């Protein structure tokens, strides 16, 4: 995009395949304070310089284990927490240093669904108030039109308009997640950040929500940043997948590329660790059991952050930090990638 779009342009939907979001070298630091003297002792780089993009109508899966920075990334992309470096470009506009008033029109276009609908829905509000709130705050509808819009949203996520008068605690976990999705859709966004949206749900309910998200994406041309630790779910729903380890993206590729030819040893280990629901393949697959735990992000290893658990690590891995390289769709950050 050459010209700077006007604010109105932000609400125009991009054609499928156009770049909706570009994140460059994003980092997020959390300070570490001493508990007694309240002195700043240092900082933890939860996200340590990551870059990726997301196209209109696409699902990018962001996968990694606890503490790898995937949720922090999701929040930082929406500017719900402050980042310490890098840039975020949404719909051709640089959001990086935008004031919160200038951000307002962008907020309509980028929304979030959180893991635990129990804690993300106000227990004192009816479902109708919860879903109406963003619409009223942005002044998009009121009165009869607002009611109709909420009814429409409830039906869209598989609930009934009559459910609107109830409170969140009257619903099951799966239904609460539907309410959370309806609220996120209320402003007609183009991008949804889905932060572990099905992790707290039972298998049968998880499938309902995954199918709902896929249907909504088709009907509403949504782009998803789908953050989860469950590789099977991410793999099922995503077009492309980014794998994070200790604040860094170690590999990005289409899901077929990652499945059939993972390049980073960590991706390979992660894939091999997923239990396969097939008892006849027991012991056949090459399970790579990684040794040890993830190091503390407060003092990450030098060079490649994965080297302390990597079976391929050499001296160069401790000295030189690998950068993401590869072909147009498939890149990995490893000095000794698989299949080369």
């Amino acid at each position, binding site marked *: 995009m050459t010209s700077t779009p006007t604010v109105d342009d932000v609400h125009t939907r991009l054609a499928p395949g156009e770049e909706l979001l570009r994140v460059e070298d994003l980092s997020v630091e959390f300070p570490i304070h001493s508990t007694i003297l309240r002195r700043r002792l240092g900082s933890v780089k939860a996200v340590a310089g990551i870059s990726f993009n997301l196209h209109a109508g696409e699902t990018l899966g962001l996968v990694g*284990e*606890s503490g790898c920075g995937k949720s922090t990334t999701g929040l930082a992309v929406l500017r719900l927490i402050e980042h310490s470096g890098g840039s975020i470009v949404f719909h051709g506009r640089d959001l990086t240093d935008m004031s919160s008033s200038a951000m307002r029109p962008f907020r309509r276009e980028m929304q979030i669904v959180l893991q635990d609908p129990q804690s993300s829905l106000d227990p004192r509000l009816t479902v109708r108030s919860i879903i109406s709130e963003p619409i009223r705050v942005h002044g998009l509808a009121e009165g009869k039109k607002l009611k109709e819009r909420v009814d429409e949203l409830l039906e869209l996520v598989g609930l009934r308009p009559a459910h609107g008068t109830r409170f969140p605690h009257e619903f*099951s976990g*799966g*239904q609460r997640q539907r309410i959370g999705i309806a609220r996120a859709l209320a402003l007609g966004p183009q991008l949804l950040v889905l932060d572990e949206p099905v992790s707290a749900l*039972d*298998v*049968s*309910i*998880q*499938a*309902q929500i*995954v*199918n709902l998200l*896929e249907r909504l994406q088709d009907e509403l041309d949504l782009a998803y940043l789908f953050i989860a*630790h*469950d*590789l*099977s*779910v991410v*793999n*099922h*729903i995503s077009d492309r997948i980014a794998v994070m380890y200790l604040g860094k993206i170690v590999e990005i590729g289409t899901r077929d590329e990652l*499945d059939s030819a993972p390049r980073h040893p960590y991706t390979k*280990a*992660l*894939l*091999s*660790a*997923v*239990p*396969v*629901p*097939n*008892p*006849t393949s*027991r*012991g056949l697959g090459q*399970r790579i*059991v*990684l040794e*040890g*735990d*993830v190091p503390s992000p407060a003092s990450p290893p030098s060079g490649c952050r994965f080297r302390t658990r990597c079976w391929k690590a050499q001296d160069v891995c401790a000295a030189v930090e690998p950068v993401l390289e590869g072909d147009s769709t498939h890149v990995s950050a490893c000095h000794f990638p698989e299949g080369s």
Partner: protein
Amino acid sequence: MALNAPTPTGSPLLSVSDLHVTFHGEEGAVEAVRGVSWDISPGEVLGIVGESGSGKSVSVSSILGLLPSPPARISGGPVMFEGRDLLAMNEKELRVIRGNHIAMIFQDPMTAFNPVKTIGHQISEAIRVHDKSVSRSAARARSIELLSMVGVPGPEARFRQFPHEYSGGMRQRAMIAMAIANRPRLLIADEPTTALDVTIQAQILELLDVVRHETDAATILITHDLGVIAEVADRVVVMYAGKVVESTSVLDLFADPHHPYTLGLLGSLPRLTVRMDTLYSIPGQPPDMAHAPPGCAFAPRCSLSRGRAECRERVPELVPVGDALSACHFHDEMETATQSVAREIGLDIRVGQEAP
């Protein structure tokens, strides 16, 4: 992990018959476990699978007297362990069984350990409580040996550390060390890997397998994860709404499910290895156990029932179907049901028939 092990003859190690657990609360009684029967043979790995509220954990905790009573009330039985009825034992007798013969591994090791005592102290204590003749130093040596066996690096230094100084995976290892300290004959693992990351889960599943070979203990693995079941169980019990709906060998379960609920669960699993057009989704949600439906509890969500009166009115018995047990009035229609799910999701979920 012998897959084709013949159904063991001889007497089972633990045999549960017609177990009921009812919680009496202010709003009346809720029957969480409604007549459950199964048994486990020495050395066997029995997987108990089900979703939240299916009664899988409650049924096992109740056997060991781990549920506070009131509100829990246990009826039915007997629950025979090596020839003795656990339900007839008093607390003192049960305590001997719990530490010496049956050990438990929980989902969250943080709650299983006392936070103000060192890990080493707690493992040593577990050894000495059950055998007072063991000296302090012998218990210490044995604890360090156990920590080393479960793969805790630097066991001597780790012996002196507190639970919060361990990572989640290491704590789970330490709990396994404590569980096997007295060479139990039965190990009960309740969602042992649910709170762990997938690479750590792989470590712990591998460790459980090693431990089983070393101790020869039978294992009951309670989980909601059919992938974990496929990896480690010999036999599987599927629970829904407080009842066993299917029970069979792990191979048979994945090759030929005999209950529509099992079929639905298998169809709703996203898979890494094969592409599915969409996931099968079981409509609705599990019943509120305070108002469990009459007849088959799964009927309102069942694709096979299609509202037939039989399902709504009569509780299906657990009956033999081939080598399996199934609690479905229309289990002879499973072939059609499986094919209809296959058409919907673009995958025949039966192992061996996944050809696209």
